[in-house]
């Protein structure tokens, strides 16, 4: 451990840690404003906003000698004995001048700029800027330039931090963004015919400190100060990026990556980022129904569980198809419930959507071909309880041989996930329960149609392809006619009170060695389940 001084406060730096001045100051609770530095990108020290005074403290005498000139904190290592001063008049004046410089030719766009409310230029101006505007330019509004399908560039708002250009060079390796011209004429642009179109494009909007880069889909849709932010996990693929779900009045407006050094660091892919529209699709199925002969009987949620339970107990042999979109807790409850009714119930892992191959980018980020968030977790639950591993493909013939009388199928897929013939084969069972988001051939043939929850509407945990378990709470309420899987199964299992996913997880962790690491609660960045495994599973 070594000591670094920041504004008189002593900070401990671990022997293996490599921190710069900004990070050391953050540890002391002190903000050093900066634009161009980003922990995931190269250090360029070009914005000059993070200038501080630095010096050394003699280890023996304790005497401090300061360097006469300012230095960027982002390029100054917090080496043992380093002294940082961020609150001097010299530093304040330097910051005020950089702010002024950036505002000299900045368009007066705040009223029409999406970034207002989360804009570093605004924030730093209030904290560190000057009261008086001395610029000599007439107010103007920014030019707008499309740089790709999902990102819009407001050229004149750019402060030349070059984060976006470095992102496409260092993280995606796609090199679409460039700087053109020299000096104060510099602008960000793409080469004609080569738009910003890589699978991680949306991240440049996150890292842009001002309103220069905007999400085309999100433009002008919501002011950020109305958005409430919830920690979540992306359900787009088996990478399981940590995200924030940002919503207002139960409507999701955008997803943003949440920093997680073990999974996605600071990034998420576009498919995940923009993959929430289905949550508010008008095609979402409403109202649970039961088929009675040729009619449909609308069932209120107050009486449905008892009715369903009775029908299941009368049915005979049961089988359950587990969607890889279920949480660990839901899969556990469902499996337990089915086995409580029929100890020999078949437990089968449902279709696992795969598209293409795993793709890893130069910066290390990986998009998985497996387009569901919890195949790993669901499979563990299923295989523990049903070691005989019935394959999904065997189901139609088992049904045809009349070995199954009651079938519960869990869906939750974003897109079409089966065809007519598969639905017809499964629908041969006398009692078919389908829990899903959208109509489908199987849904149309169900005995019980149960509208299910989307990913952002449930509490629970997912396990990623790398055996990391992350837990999350719901971010938006589901449509009025939906009772999410968790509460429904909780009730069917005869448990009382409100659904508590954390309680279920603790049970799972006690009963299944694979989940043992989650027994004492799960931190925000999740937990690596492999930590507790001493032998290969």
């Amino acid at each position, binding site marked *: 451990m070594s000591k670094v001084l920041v504004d008189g406060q002593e900070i401990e730096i671990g022997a293996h840690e490599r921190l710069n001045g900004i990070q050391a100051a953050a540890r002391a609770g002190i903000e050093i404003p900066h634009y161009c530095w980003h922990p995931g990108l190269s250090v360029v020290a070009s914005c000059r906003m993070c200038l501080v005074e630095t010096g050394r403290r003699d280890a023996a005498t304790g005497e401090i000698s300061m360097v006469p000139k300012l230095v960027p904190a982002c390029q100054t290592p917090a080496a043992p004995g380093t002294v940082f001063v961020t609150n001097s008049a010299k530093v304040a004046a330097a910051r005020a001048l950089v702010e002024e410089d950036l505002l000299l030719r900045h368009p007066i766009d705040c009223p029409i700029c999406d970034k207002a409310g989360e804009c570093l230029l605004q924030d730093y101006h209030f904290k560190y800027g000057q009261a008086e505007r001395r610029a000599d330019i007439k107010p103007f509004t920014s030019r707008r330039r499309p740089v790709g399908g999902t990102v819009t560039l407001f050229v004149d708002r750019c402060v030349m931090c070059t984060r976006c250009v470095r992102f496409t060079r260092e993280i995606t390796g796609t*090199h679409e963004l460039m700087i053109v*011209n020299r000096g104060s004429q510099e602008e960000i642009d793409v*080469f004609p015919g080569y738009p910003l179109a890589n699978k991680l494009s949306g991240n440049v909007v996150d890292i842009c400190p001002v309103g220069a880069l905007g999400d085309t889909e999100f433009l002008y849709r919501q002011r950020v100060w109305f958005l409430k932010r919830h920690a979540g996990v992306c359900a787009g693929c088996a990478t399981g990026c940590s995200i924030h779900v940002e919503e207002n009045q139960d409507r999701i407006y955008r997803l943003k990556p949440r920093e997680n050094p073990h999974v996605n660091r600071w990034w998420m892919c576009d498919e995940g980022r923009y993959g929430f529209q289905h949550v508010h699709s008008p095609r979402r199925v409403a109202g649970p129904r039961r088929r009675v002969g040729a009619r449909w009987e609308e069932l209120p949620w107050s009486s449905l569980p008892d009715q369903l339970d009775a029908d299941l107990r009368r049915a005979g042999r049961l089988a359950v198809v587990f969607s890889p979109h279920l949480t660990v807790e839901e899969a556990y409850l469902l499996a337990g419930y089915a086995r409580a009714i029929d100890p020999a119930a078949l437990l089968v892992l449902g279709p696992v959507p795969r598209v293409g191959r795993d793709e890893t980018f130069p910066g290390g980020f990986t998009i998985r071909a497996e387009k569901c968030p919890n195949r790993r977790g669901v499979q563990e639950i299923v295989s523990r309880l049903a070691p005989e591993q019935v394959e999904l493909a065997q189901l139609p013939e088992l049904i045809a041989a009349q070995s199954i009388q009651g079938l519960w199928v869990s869906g939750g897929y974003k897109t079409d996930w089966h065809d007519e013939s598969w639905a017809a084969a499964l629908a041969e069972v006398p009692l078919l329960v389908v829990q899903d988001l959208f109509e489908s051939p199987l849904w149309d043939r169900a005995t019980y149609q149960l509208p299910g929850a989307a990913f952002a509407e449930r509490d629970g945990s997912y396990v990623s392809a790398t055996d990391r378990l992350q837990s999350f709470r719901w971010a938006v309420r589901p449509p009025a006619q939906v009772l999410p899987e968790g509460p429904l199964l909780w009730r069917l299992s005869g448990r009382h009170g409100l659904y508590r996913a954390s309680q279920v997880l603790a049970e799972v962790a006690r009963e299944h060695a694979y989940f043992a690491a989650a027994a004492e609660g799960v931190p925000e960045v999740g937990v690596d389940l492999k930590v507790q495994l001493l032998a290969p599973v």
Partner: protein
Amino acid sequence: MAAERILTAEMIAEIEAYLRRYPTRQAVTLPALHVVHHHLRHVPLQAVVEVAEFLELSPAQVQDTLSFYGFFKQAAPHGRTRAWVCRSLSCALRGGEEILQHLCGRLGLEPGGTTRDGRLTLEAAECLGACELAPCLLAGQRLHGNLTPAAAEGLLESLGPSRGQAG
């Protein structure tokens, strides 16, 4: 829609000859741009695409470099003679600005512009490094010094199509 290739075999051979001088392909960017500019008197966007392909870079990377230097023309070829008139301090002290203004007026051009017949491009240059001969003008490969507005005008007249050299 495949665009017609611009780089000739000769240009490619010239660019290729530079590869052995540098450990990276990207370092051949500036020499390659000079080759193209020398032949075509400008570097059209299609040429940028082809140079990028050859150097295993993205077009954006090459364009980024190209646009930094005010030297390369892109929209249209410069004139057969490219005349740089120096406007830095030593030349300005001895009439450089007047020469530039005079030529702009006579030719009906702004600095950077080309005459309609494609004969001449007039550029404002920063210090040409010939201050002992101020005010001066670099036309093609030749430096002319100790000019007056009239002498400069006469000089450019005399550089007809047969004598003007591409930059």
